[in-house]
């Protein structure tokens, strides 16, 4: 089982709740993924429409744990205030900390991220920082109090998979005991399987499921891929080699030339 902060999770697939064609499809996808954790956010509520109340009702009915994010925050101040608001509304000390530094790639402002992580950790939050594969930043985040890291696979919503394989492998090797959850950029189940084969602990997926033609089917496909990838990691994959090696024994081969 995967342990994040004090919580043990059976499912290694965390699912985002955004961009689904309808609430019913979202519900089906969460069930098909067998997700125990879904990400949520806070947005302005109109007193007339009260869209947020309806959404919150759907999530509560699913009985899953929520991981609120600070998506869209570009400054430490914004992220801190959002985190405090999320803790009250969602009743959890978990926070997926995003401090966005660049609008085209949505890559994190790692300097602000570390600063915010330090303040929030000291304030009793369980911080899940959305970061890059940078080892020094990872080290600073752990020093700031984070016990989980969420490195990106590729830019949010890009579906490009594991963009910097070498960097991610180095991160995994460097922090063997820290739960590492690949967040962002996963496009298809094979990307998720690859992440698990490399020894990452879990994967957070949103767009790849929500924007599929059949989200629930894709969610199920991801769940299978994660299980296969995890099993492969535990089984110990062979090392690749440059030259061919016959799999059928050469000894005892008939001389028929």
């Amino acid at each position, binding site marked *: 089982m995967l342990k994040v902060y004090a919580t043990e999770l059976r499912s290694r697939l965390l699912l985002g*709740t955004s*961009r689904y064609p309808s609430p019913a499809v979202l519900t089906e996808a969460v069930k098909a993924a067998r997700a125990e954790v879904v990400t949520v*956010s806070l947005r*302005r509520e109109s*007193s007339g429409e009260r869209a*947020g109340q309806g959404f919150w009702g759907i999530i509560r009915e699913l009985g899953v744990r929520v991981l609120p994010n600070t998506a869209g925050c570009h400054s430490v*101040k914004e992220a801190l*205030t959002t985190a405090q*608001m999320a803790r009250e509304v969602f009743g959890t000390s978990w926070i997926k900390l995003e401090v966005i530094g660049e609008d085209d790639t949505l890559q994190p402002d790692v300097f602000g991220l570390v600063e915010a992580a330090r303040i929030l950790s000291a304030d009793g939050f369980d911080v899940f920082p959305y970061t890059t594969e940078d080892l020094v930043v990872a080290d600073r985040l752990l020093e700031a109090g984070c016990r989980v890291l969420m490195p990106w696979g590729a830019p*949010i919503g890009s579906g490009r998979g594991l963009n910097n394989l070498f960097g991610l492998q180095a991160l995994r090797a460097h922090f063997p005991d820290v739960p590492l959850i690949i967040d962002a950029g996963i496009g298809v189940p094979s990307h998720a399987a690859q992440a698990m084969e490399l020894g990452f602990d879990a994967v957070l997926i949103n767009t790849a499921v929500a924007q599929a033609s059949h989200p629930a089917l894709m969610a199920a496909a991801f769940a299978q891929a994660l299980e296969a990838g995890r099993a492969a990691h535990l089984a110990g994959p062979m090392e690749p080699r440059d030259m061919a090696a016959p799999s059928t024994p050469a000894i005892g081969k008939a001389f028929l030339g």
Partner: protein
Amino acid sequence: MKILVNGAWRETDASDLAAALTALGYGEAVVATALNGEFVATGSRADARLTDGDRLEVLAPMQGG
């Protein structure tokens, strides 16, 4: 007085944040509030005095990735 609620100017006679939320129609809705960029916990809303030109953010659960 006028306060900026979620980016729109609204007229209110409420002197504190708790009264303003009721007057604005939020009633029992599950929301979190920030006044001039500072988080105001539910229990502190009645103590949060409003003045003309205040910026109020009223947020609720929403889809997120």
